[in-house]
């Protein structure tokens, strides 16, 4: 019988862990790479696109491995959609760099290599932070951004969870 003056600090009973759970792959794998910037077009109609590759084992994403091309304004679109429709605090995007778009600059402006690299890093951080948010994962706009070939700006905003079983 235990002494009532000494607290009982024995551990509570636990189920022993299944070895497949212990040594299996974690069910939270999500990695997005933003890379391979390509500048398309000529003169003042140029713009840069980036390849966005997502690899995941989260069941909420239809494709476990997807690749799409996106430009900065697509990221802006995504940020605006989420700020309007979801309750989350959306992480910041790298700057719009309006100054760099003014004429009579000594350098390439927004097509300067170092700037593109800086922006690429910022976009990668942005999309990784966002895609890992459980509430952002509910929004159709995120899935369309990451896994549809092109973004349909006339889409119907909505949630993707709580689909009836068998859909």
């Amino acid at each position, binding site marked *: 019988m235990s002494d009532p003056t000494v*607290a*009982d*600090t*024995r*551990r*509570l009973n*636990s*189920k022993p*862990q*299944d070895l497949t*759970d*212990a040594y*299996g792959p*974690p*069910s*939270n794998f*999500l990695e997005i790479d933003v890379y391979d910037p390509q500048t398309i077009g000529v003169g003042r109609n140029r713009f840069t696109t980036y390849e966005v590759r997502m690899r995941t084992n*989260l*069941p*909420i994403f239809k494709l476990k491995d997807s690749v799409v091309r996106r430009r900065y304004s697509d990221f802006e679109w995504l940020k605006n959609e989420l700020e309007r429709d979801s309750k989350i605090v959306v992480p910041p995007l790298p700057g719009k760099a309006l100054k760099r778009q003014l004429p009579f600059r000594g350098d390439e402006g927004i097509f300067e290599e170092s700037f593109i690299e800086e922006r690429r890093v910022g976009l990668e951080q942005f999309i990784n*932070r966002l895609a*890992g*948010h*459980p509430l952002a*994962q509910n929004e159709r706009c995120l899935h369309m951004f990451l896994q549809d070939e092109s973004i349909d700006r006339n889409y119907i905003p909505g949630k993707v*969870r*709580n689909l009836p079983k068998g859909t």
Partner: protein
Amino acid sequence: MSTHTFLSVTIHHNMSFFSFGQSAEIDVVLTDAETRKKAEHKTEDGKKDKYFLFYDGETVSGKINITLKNPGKRLEHQGIKIEFVGQIELYYDRGNHHEFVSLVKDLARPGELTQSQTFDFEFTHVEKPYETYTGQNVKLRYFLRATVSRRLNDISKEMDIVVHTLSTYPELNSSIKMEVGIEDCLHIEFEYNKSKYHLKDVIVGKIYFLLVRIKIKHMEIDIIKRETTGTGPSVYHENDTIAKYEIMDGAPVRGESIPIRLFLAGYEMTPTMRDINKKFSVRYYLNLVLIDEEERRYFKQQEITLWRKGDVVRKSMSSQATIGAQRFEGSASSESALEKAAREDSG
């Protein structure tokens, strides 16, 4: 014809400043000042002081010494009394003191003191229903106040005491066990061994991960104290995180079980106080917090009841039972002790 105008000047400040009249110092001394325990208590300005410790039902007795400042001069007074007061003071409503205990003993009728004098007092078996509490928006205190009433200004002295409310082990003390989570994202089952803990108790528990689809960085348990004052439209909640205790560092997977062992004695806490005199409450919550790699926080709050266990040893066993218990302690094996007792009983 001459008119005599009499100017009457009334001096409205402490007469002793001018060394006119007489003043006195009051000293309150408890009968058991030598033996009574003292308890530490934090005052409103954050300082820790020691005060005499009392429990519900205990008698408060002692004497007051009135020492005349100018020996030889008389002290005229309108009466000498001592009060025992228990009151609640809300900081946003300082003018109104809500007295829930108010006892008074008259020590002397109006008259005069020609020399320093001592008066005995006793408040027998005083009810002290609540524990002394000093918080963010409210204060509950007990004190003795000795007053020498005078025409212009009274002389008074207050002595605060600290009251602790004791409880015993509750009959019903179920564990807290719950499954919570975010659908398809994070499912955990948490368990705490009890729902009512005494102030020097240990919280023993575990967190079992049923589903982990987020990248967890670490997990902690916070103890939160919530002080609620006021009623109806003007209710104030003050939340204070008393403790943050990390219980896991790193990413768990499905099927893992994380133990909890949180010793409460290291933290400054009070017993749970519910709706004290309908004026305020002090409640405690365990907040289980999981933090992911993007600093997002997932949490589940659960109220626990805290109570104060008495330090006094229960002298309820009869002398026979005490002797019987001592027989078993001395021997090496319990079997031989049992045999020994059986032989002695039958012999």
